[in-house]
C-alpha cells in the first residue's frame, strides 16, 4: 500500500499525470476513486476486494472524464488485458495513459469482502489464472502472491451446458434471461463495450427490441456475446453488476471457447497480439462459408 501511495503521490507531484484512478475504502467496501491531489494519494488501497475493472473508465464513451487530464490507472493482470484491448482497437493510445500494475493473487467475488481470500472464497474467474503481475505496465507494485488452481466453475458449467440437449439448454437460458430488465448495466461496465452508439440503442430502425420479453432479451444477450467474440477479457464485471444475477459470463465464455479453438486466441495483455476480429489470414478456417 505504501509503495502504491508513494508512487501515486510522486506522479501527481511531478505532474506527469493529473489523475490517479485506483480504489479506496467506501461505505460498502472497496470502490473506484479518482485521486487528483497529491495529498489524496493516502486514500488509495489495494487488496482482494479491489475487484472492479477500472479500464472501463478509459473507454471513449465517457465524455465526463475528458477533463481529468492524463490518467494513471491501477491495473490487475486481468485489467491490463482490457487496456491492451482498448489499445489494440485504437480506442486508447499507449502513451495517453500511465499504467500502475499491481501484483495479484486473485480477488474476492465482490468489493464488500466479507470473507478472507481462500480457494473457496476466491472469485471464480481467478481460478486457474496464471498471471501474477501485469506485463503491460509502466510501474509494478505490490507483493507477489500465489494464485488458485483451476478450472473455474464457470468453465465447467459451459461444458455442462454444452452436454445438454438443445431443448434443455434453451430452457436453462429462458429461465435465466427472464430476470433481465434491459438496464444494460452489463454493457455500461464492460471495458470493451465502447461503441459510440450501441446496436441496442439504435431506434431508426430498432434492431434489438427494447422490451424485456423473451425475444428482446435473447436478441440483446446474443448480440452482446457475439460482439465480444475475440475481445472479452473475462473480467467478469458484466456478471457481477447484473441486477438480475444472470450468469452472463457463461455466454462470453462459450463464445471465447470457439474463438480459442478456431483462431487460437486468448485474452492477452500484449496490444501487439492481433485481434481475431481485426485480422484476416489465408489459413483461417472458412468451411462454414457456403
Amino acid at each position: 500500500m505504501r509503495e502504491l501511495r508513494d508512487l501515486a503521490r510522486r506522479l501527481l507531484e511531478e505532474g506527469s499525470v493529473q489523475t490517479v484512478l485506483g480504489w479506496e475504502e467506501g461505505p460498502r467496501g472497496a470502490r473506484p476513486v479518482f485521486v487528483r491531489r497529491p495529498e489524496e494519494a493516502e486514500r488509495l488501497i489495494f487488496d482482494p476486494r479491489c475487484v472492479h475493472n477500472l479500464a472501463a473508465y478509459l473507454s471513449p464513451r465517457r465524455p465526463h472524464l475528458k477533463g481529468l487530464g492524463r490518467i494513471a490507472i491501477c491495473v490487475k493482470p486481468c485489467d491490463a488485458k482490457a487496456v491492451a484491448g482498448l489499445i489494440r482497437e485504437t480506442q486508447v493510445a499507449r502513451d495517453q495513459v500511465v499504467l500502475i500494475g499491481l501484483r495479484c493473487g486473485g480477488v474476492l467475488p465482490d468489493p464488500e469482502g466479507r470473507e478472507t481470500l481462500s480457494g473457496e472464497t476466491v472469485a471464480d474467474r481467478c481460478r486457474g489464472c496464471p498471471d501474477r503481475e501485469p506485463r503491460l505496465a509502466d510501474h509494478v507494485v505490490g507483493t507477489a502472491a500465489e494464485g488458485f488452481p483451476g478450472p473455474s466453475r464457470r468453465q465447467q458449467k459451459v461444458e455442462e451446458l454444452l452436454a445438454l440437449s438443445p431443448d434443455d439448454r434453451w430452457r436453462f437460458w429462458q429461465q435465466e434471461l427472464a430476470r433481465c430488465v434491459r438496464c444494460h448495466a452489463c454493457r455500461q461496465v464492460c471495458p470493451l463495450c465502447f461503441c459510440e452508439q450501441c446496436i441496442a440503442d439504435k431506434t431508426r430502425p430498432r434492431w434489438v427490441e427494447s422490451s424485456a420479453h423473451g425475444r428482446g432479451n435473447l436478441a440483446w444477450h446474443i448480440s452482446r456475446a457475439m460482439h465480444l467474440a475475440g475481445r472479452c477479457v473475462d473480467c467478469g464485471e458484466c456478471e457481477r453488476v447484473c441486477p438480475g444475477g444472470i450468469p452472463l459470463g457463461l455466454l462470453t465464455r462459450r463464445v471465447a471457447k470457439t474463438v480459442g479453438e478456431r483462431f487460437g486466441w486468448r485474452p492477452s495483455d500484449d496490444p501487439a497480439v492481433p485481434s481475431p476480429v481485426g485480422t484476416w489470414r489465408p489459413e483461417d478456417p472458412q468451411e462454414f462459408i457456403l
Partner: protein
Amino acid sequence: MMTNASQITQAGLSSLVEDLRQAGIQVIGPARVTDGAVEYQRLADLSGWTPGVQPRRSLKEWFLPVTEPLFRYRKQGPRVLVEELAPPDAPRVVLGAYPCDAAALPILDAVMGWDYRDDPWFARREATVILSQVCPGGDASCFCTDVGIAPDSAAGADLRMCPIESGWRVQVETGKGEAFLQQWSRHFQPANGSKNPLPPAGPPRSEAPRANPERVRAWIETHFEDPFWQEVALRCHGCGGCAAVCPTCHCFDIVDEPENPVQGARRRNWDTCQTALFTRHASGHNPREDQCGRCRQRVNHKFAIYPARFGRILCTGCGRCARTCPSGQDITEILARIDQWAAGPGGA
C-alpha cells in the same frame, strides 16, 4: 366482527395461501430464484417463502411491469385497428411486503394519477391487497428513517404483520385490509391481550438522520451548476442498476413493436434517466450530454423536483441503490455532503 388486531399461525397462513390459490387469487411474496437471491415471486404455497430477506428488486414491478403491452394493432388497408387489452385487474395478495416497498406505492400514486390517470397502474393497485411485515432488519445501507419512513411504517399496507412466537400478529390498516380479514376470517384468531396491537418496532438502524431533507432540497434547487455534480459522477458508469432495483424510480419508455408488417403491439418498458438514450432528441442532440447531468437528475428528481410537485420525497430509504451499485456510489453519502454544505456558512 373482527377486532383490529388478529393473529394467524404459520399453519393458518399456509392454509390461507392454499385457499387464496383455490379462489384464483394470486399470492406474491419474497422467494428464492435460481441464482440464490430473493425476489418478489408468485407463490404456489408457503414452502419457498422467505420473509426475512429483503428482495433484491423492489415490489414495483408487480404494479409497473418491466415490460407490458398497452394495446395491439393491426393495419387493414388504410386503416389501423386497435385491439384493447383487458385491464390487469386480477385479484392479488402480497404477503410479506417490506415497509420500504409498500410505502413506495402511495408515493407513486401521486404521479400516476397526476396529469392523466394511469389505468394499468391503478387497476393493479385496486386489485391488490398488501400484507406488509414489520421490517425484520436491514443493513448499513438502509436509511428509511432519514426519509420519513420507519421499520414499522404502515404506509401502503392494508394489513401489517409482525412475527410472534405462534405465528404472526396482524393489524388492519385500511378498509380493504379489514374486508380481507373478514373474508378469510376462518384462518385468523383475535389477538390475545394487549391493547398495543403490534410489538414495538426495533430501533431504527440510523440513530440520527444523516441529512435534513428540507435543507438538502433547498441546496439542490439553488446549486444546479455546482461543481459537486461533476465530481460525484466520476465513478458512475451510467448502468442504471440503481433505477432497476429502486421502489420509486418509475420512468418508462413507450415503443411500437411490429411482429410483422401488418401487426404488432405498443408496449411500455422501464427506462431510466441514467442512460444517454433517455434524453436523446430525434435530431441527435442530447440536452443531458454526460453522466454528470444524469447523476444530478436522479438526486434532483428524488429530493427536490418530486417533493416540490407532490410534497413527498421520491425515496423510501430501502438502500438497494447502494447495494447494487457496481462502483460503490452511496446516496446517503451524497445527501450527507449536500446537507453539510447547506447547513454551513452561506449554505443554501
